């Protein structure tokens, strides 16, 4: 856990943002405390506190005196909007670039989306493998 290239407190902040976006941490729900973070992931409590300070600054979580940290109202919608604004450049474009590199025609990408207008099917198992 938290083995990425960024400092640990940035990774903790990223993880909490991702949980807010996915709905695993709904608005007004309680976030794990500094102590819980420190002992669960065996990290210095100051490291966890730094992550919380970033999220408080961004208005995504708020401190309730004597109770702990809670996800702020509107945090989910704000994060989703931010991520939508950058989705095409940051997520979709690299996927298309990969397709170009592999020689997968654009028409095939469009056909794939047309075939599954609502939900995507479960990932296909590679050839030769049994289910």
């Amino acid at each position, binding site marked *: 856990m938290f083995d*990425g*290239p*960024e*400092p*640990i*407190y940035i990774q903790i902040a990223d993880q909490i943002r991702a949980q807010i976006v996915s709905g695993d941490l709904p608005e007004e729900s309680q976030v794990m405390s*500094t*102590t819980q973070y*420190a*002992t669960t*992931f*065996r*990290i*210095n*409590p*100051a*490291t966890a506190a730094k992550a919380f300070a970033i999220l408080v600054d961004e208005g995504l979580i708020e401190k309730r005196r004597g109770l702990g940290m809670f996800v702020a109202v509107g945090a989910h919608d704000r994060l989703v909007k931010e991520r939508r604004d950058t989705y095409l450049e940051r997520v979709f474009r690299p996927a298309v670039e990969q397709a170009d590199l592999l020689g997968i025609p654009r028409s095939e990408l469009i056909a794939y989306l047309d075939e599954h207008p609502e939900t995507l099917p479960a990932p296909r198992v590679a050839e030769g493998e049994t289910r």
Partner: protein
Amino acid sequence: MTTPYGAELTDVTVRYGRRTDEAALDHVSFTVRPGTITGLLGRNGAGKSTALSLLASLRRPTSGTVLVNGVDPFEDAVVMAGVQLVRESGDILGDTSINETLGYYDELRPHWDGDYARALLDQFDVDPRTTPAKLSRGKKSALGCIVGLASRAPLTIFDESYLGMDAPSRYAFYDALLDDYTDHPRTIVVSSHLIEEVERLFEDVVMLHRGRTLVSETADALRNRAVSVVGPSSAVSKLADDHRVLATRNLGGTTQLTLEGSLEPAEIALARDAGIEIARVSIQDLFIHLSQEPDPMKEDAR
């Protein structure tokens, strides 16, 4: 409520033998900020235990100043009541029952918590009716750690205290340490050469090497001193133009470099486009690189 103690060594030299002998500490300066968990790292013989024995006032420096909570701790009964040093030997009376020893600490340490000590003895499976002499090395180490934790001293020092413990017990000790530290903030200094296991516990890091200070800064600042890049050799070698290379590994077409400093956002973007993977360098690896640097002063003296 404990007020954590800070500590400071300024230009400290310690010689054990004649003046001509190599100094155990050679003009060493570092700061332990109050309320932090500070790691004291160094190879065997680097001077870690000597530095810690100064903080615990077991000796005086040959020259330089030692301050604990702002005063010279030597023979200062008030400050010393708030400093607990745990060495691997345990510093425990071998032929006295553990129950009796805990009684001594109850009188010696103003913040001693006997109930907590008993809970830890139970957790680490140490029978308080027995004597330390009858304990295995691992249990003896555990007992030292228990005394260190239950003292709740404003400055608590673990000098490789837990090396005799097996891995599960060491991790149980780290968990207990973090748990109790968050409930009862105090200054904790941990010396170790098992860096990988403990580096995430530290807010600050002091590194000693051959009796000198190599590093005294926050763990985050230290981690920013170097970065690791792995990718196609041609792309990776371009990054090396603007950074000093600390280590190189070639893996047939792929190269891994450890570069000094951190990468600019523009460099990170370029590197990612070129299929280069950027990773942090562990404090363990940084320590290995930093302690291999040639020491210009030592070279001159020869």
